[in-house]
């Protein structure tokens, strides 16, 4: 049985005057996926989300949520989508509890049904300790949880999250992702924009938008196997040593090294397949570094996006 398509868009385009914010973007997201949408600031990520949520009219192309067209069947999509915007969209003067009740009422929940749903969400997002706190006084992490809970009041089947982890501490970030996996396994489809590569690695599918165009789309593993990312006749090595910056300078002078980037205590090299590991050890020995650990690695998603961006920028 083919997977059910929850989000689909075809040639989705948005122009603001002469500026094309989104340029013929096409992709689809299957049920229960966690789709990571990446791209630099201003590349059109939020614009795509707004069009898919039915609050921004596409200039060209179509989008659909659970089979309903986003610009023609606006009322039909409202019940099935949840949206957590960049600014969290909470009312600062209202307490966490009141924010939840407000959004619940907005979606037509009343009386005992509203209270029951509120209690479920409070438990899901672990909001008990801050339930009577004004939203304006919550820290970033708690605001984000509350906003998330508010976006879930009507049990949407598709949830859009626009940079949910921007400015959030690592613990809160980890917890949010745990929650996202939980929701996904319960059948929800998630669409998340982010700048963090570690978050992208956790997605089942990623799309990369650059200069208003969708450059690439697929599972992280598929993207890492792209020929553009793995030029023929090359290999990747992780080289761990002391004085990594000294090592980097020495290695960059060698012939056959195509790219070298530092990752903490080690560096990632893209080099000619024919180069023996010994030549690297020799060069590093020449600058006084003898303790060297070398092992082969595959490309990371960051490698994928950096290479594709360069290629795309160069190709224009």
């Amino acid at each position, binding site marked *: 049985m083919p997977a059910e398509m929850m989000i689909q868009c075809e040639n989705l385009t948005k122009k603001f005057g002469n500026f094309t914010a989104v340029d013929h973007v096409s992709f689809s997201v299957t049920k229960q996926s966690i789709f990571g949408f990446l791209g630099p600031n201003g590349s059109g990520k939020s614009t795509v989300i707004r069009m898919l949520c039915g*609050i921004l009219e596409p200039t060209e192309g179509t989008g659909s949520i659970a089979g309903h067209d986003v610009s023609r069947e606006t009322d039909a999509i409202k019940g099935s989508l949840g949206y957590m915007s960049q600014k969290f969209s909470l009312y600062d003067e209202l307490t966490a509890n009141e924010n939840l009740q407000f959004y619940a009422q907005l979606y*037509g929940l009343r009386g005992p049904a509203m209270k029951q749903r509120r209690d479920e969400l409070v438990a899901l997002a672990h909001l008990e300790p801050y339930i009577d706190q004004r939203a304006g006084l919550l820290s970033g992490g708690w605001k984000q949880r509350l906003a998330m809970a508010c976006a879930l009041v009507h049990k949407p089947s598709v949830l859009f999250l626009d940079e949910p982890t921007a400015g959030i501490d690592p613990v809160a970030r980890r917890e949010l992702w745990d929650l996202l996996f939980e929701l996904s396994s319960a059948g929800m489809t998630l669409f998340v924009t982010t700048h963090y590569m570690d978050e992208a690695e956790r997605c089942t599918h990623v799309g990369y938008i650059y200069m208003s165009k969708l450059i690439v789309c697929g599972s992280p593993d598929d993207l890492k196997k792209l020929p553009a990312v793995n030029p023929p006749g090359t290999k990747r090595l992780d080289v761990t040593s002391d004085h990594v910056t000294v090592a980097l300078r020495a290695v960059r002078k060698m012939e056959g090294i195509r790219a070298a980037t530092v990752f903490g205590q080690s560096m990632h090299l893209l080099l000619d397949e024919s180069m023996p590991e010994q030549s690297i050890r020799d060069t590093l020995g020449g600058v006084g570094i003898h303790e060297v650990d070398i092992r082969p690695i595959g490309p990371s998603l960051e490698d994928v996006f950096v290479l594709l961006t360069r290629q795309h920028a160069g190709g224009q």
Partner: protein
Amino acid sequence: MTFQMPKFLRGFRAILYKEFIVMFRDRTTLFFMFFPPLLQIIAFGFALDNDVKHMAMAVYNEDRTTESRQLVDAFVNTQTFRVVKEVNSLDELEAMVRRGKANVGLDIPPDYTRKLRAGKKADVQVLIDGSSSTIALQALNTALGVAFQRSVSILLGETDRRELPVEVRPQVLYNPSMRAPNFFVPGVIGTALQIATVFAAAMSVVRERERGTLENLLVSPMSRWGLMLGKLVPYLCVSMTMALFLFTILRWVFFVPIHGSLVMLFVASFLYIFALISLGLLVSTKAESQNEAMQMSMTIMLPSIFFSGFIFPRETMPWIFYAISTVLPATYFIELMRAIILRGAGFLEFWRHLLILALMGGVLFALCAGRFKRKIG
């Protein structure tokens, strides 16, 4: 038992619930809704009192006789003037007026008594500072009155008549003491309500736009009528409370008697406030930022202050300003207030004004709900 909201009102209860909480927690908005109108009615009520009394008068009495002193007393007895200084030259008299030390300078020439006794015309010069028209006008009228009265009593003494041949007996209806507060304060209520109400409503939707909460409202199944009614009702409640305060001040601080029916007073206020909030909401749906909303409301409100008949009578306006005044809700409200409060006018005489206010409110509200886009950008 649950009563299901009709589809076109979806979201009304939620917005209402939220707006009431926000309104009472957001102290700044509440303060700015209540404080300026109260300040305005107090300040205008006291300052716009143009019954000028005891204005400063400098006297240059060159004649120094009983008759000339009687003339000065006649001026003072009107209660319009008080003598601040007796000067000794015409230059000094002019300087007093120029420096603003005196509003009026009275110069009685040395031959005043001689000419009177000889049955000739005696000239008395009165210098009036014309830089304040209210003061100048009153000084002029009073001075002419004094001269006229003196002349008449002298003439009567020369004839055998005891009384004036013709006497006008004026009777001022509805504001018999011609107190300025009676005339101004009902008007101030119109402008005071307008400033607070329009600003507050103009901020309401645009603030959600700036904070980003509007996006979430648009994503939800809320209807635009639900949103607008949910915004309208709380502001209507607060502004009606405000109106109650203002009427209380009118009655018990400025002692302006209310001759008409209180019910009609509140119906008029309700319709006026409904029109004002709708106007504010319309601004709010059009403006992109709070700053823009502020400027747009200012642009709309300034004509109301000048052309509504609040300060200048509409009847003497050039036709273009008169035309503007006919589309301002404030014009009808202020006329209604003066009619109800001062003249005790009833529903039958002024139902047209009420109808016009209701229509204005209805049309403006329909416009802001009807033209509010459920999309952004």
